[in-house]
């Protein structure tokens, strides 16, 4: 599968998900706008996936165990 075909397939799959959830609220023009937004999301995701990280590269996200004081 070519790169373009892979992107298109991913976009169509995700669009189907969004249509299943919200399709009843969206007219044709809005669905076109959603498709464009999903294309951007997919392109961004592919750019992120293209960067290789190691197992040690953790999310930059603090989490702390919680215990009410005292």
């Amino acid at each position: 599968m070519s790169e373009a075909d892979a992107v298109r397939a991913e976009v169509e799959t995700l669009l189907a998900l969004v249509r299943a959830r919200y399709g009843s609220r969206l007219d044709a023009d809005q669905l076109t706008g959603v498709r464009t937004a999903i294309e951007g999301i997919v392109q961004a995701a592919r750019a992120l996936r293209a960067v290789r990280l190691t197992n040690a590269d953790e999310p930059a996200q603090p989490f702390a165990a919680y215990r009410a004081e005292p």
Partner: protein
Amino acid sequence: MAEDVVFLPVRQLAEGIRARRLSPVALAEVFLDRLERLGPRYNAVVTVTRGRALEQAQRAEAEIAAGRYRGPLHGIPYGAKDLLATSGGIPTTWGAAPFKDRCFDFDATAILKLEAAGAVLCAKLAMVELAGGMGYRQPNAAFTGPGVNPWNREAWSGGSSSGSGSAVAAGLVPFAIGSETWGSILSPAGNCGLAGLRPTYGRVSRHGAMALCWTLDKLGPLALTADDCGLVLEAIAGRDAADPTTVDRAYRYDAGDPAGRRFRFGVLRGITDGCEDAVRENFARSLEALRGLGTVEEVALPDLPYDDITRTILFAEAASAFEDVIESGAIAGLTAPEDRYTAYARDAILAKDYLKALRLRGVMAREADRVLAPLDALVAPGRSTVAAMLGGEVRSAIRGTARDVMGAVGNGAGLPAVAVPNGFGARGLPTSLQFMGRAWEENTILAAARAYQSATDWHRRHPADV
């Protein structure tokens, strides 16, 4: 009191108040009158808080008369972006029609801190609906109408802190509080010819502020000068138990004269690619001025998808933060047609991709710090264009229709930046210069911006007919 106090920096107003040459009550009356009379011209105001302002001004006047001067914001009028919660029946609308009558019963921490400093809340200021989190493409994306630029009333004031920008630029308040997730302080500051400071993430409590993206949202001032931004930051900074992302790191504004200090500035390679001609020319002139203050060298960041990292985090967190508004269909009541459906697409962001963005954010933060470590600041155009026209489309790095490496890295890594005016471009609209520093180096970038403003006079120019 005559209107000759309008366009005086906070520092000068404070000197007058401290010396009791200026009355806080009279000062409040001047700005309240301007907010009521001129605010609608710029679509800058949601609510004029006259009652609360006069109460605070009278208290300030009495305290100062009794010798209890609190500091440089005592008796100074200001406006707050309408995403900061305010009590007392003052609505907090988030710029969005579905919330235009909503009131909270508490004040945001930033509002409380400014009250403790003696500042006088005169207005809740207009903003792009939900701080632009739903994907707007045009200035007309608020129930109060598009933010109008005082330099050219056919142009936009910027977003999403549109009212904060236009109100300060039109002399409706001496300073305002805005918020930035990606560009929402630097954009209106640049568009309106103001100083705007985006603090380090965690410097200012977000408690009581609308959440757009928990790990990107910052609150900061817009004012006439970089110096005024420092005065305001000192008042609103600090640890807050109600916001666990704030740090226990005291901030005292260092207003020391930077004269004689030699700065080391960096410029990212290719940073003016895609900028309008006037932006590029004004930036080149700014670099000449900066060479008089220190050294300027070209630097480079490694090739990473910076915009994609920050955009993915923003979209995913906004979709979650506004889950109720989106899934209930309440977004159908928003003003911009595209805001009524674009957010549905965010369900397409996969959890693994969001986590990849968070992992890459760590790499980005370390690389940015490595580049910034030997420097006092990275400098760049504040924006790649002058303000969009009211009927036009807004170019935005958030949507991928513009490039903004400085914004992606600065916001994604939580770094401070200050924008100041550096000239004019098409249609008489301002351009800007930004200084971005290492985390917690607000004093360094403010010193650099003050030094630049000492060598230039762009900040002393104000729109005609205001």
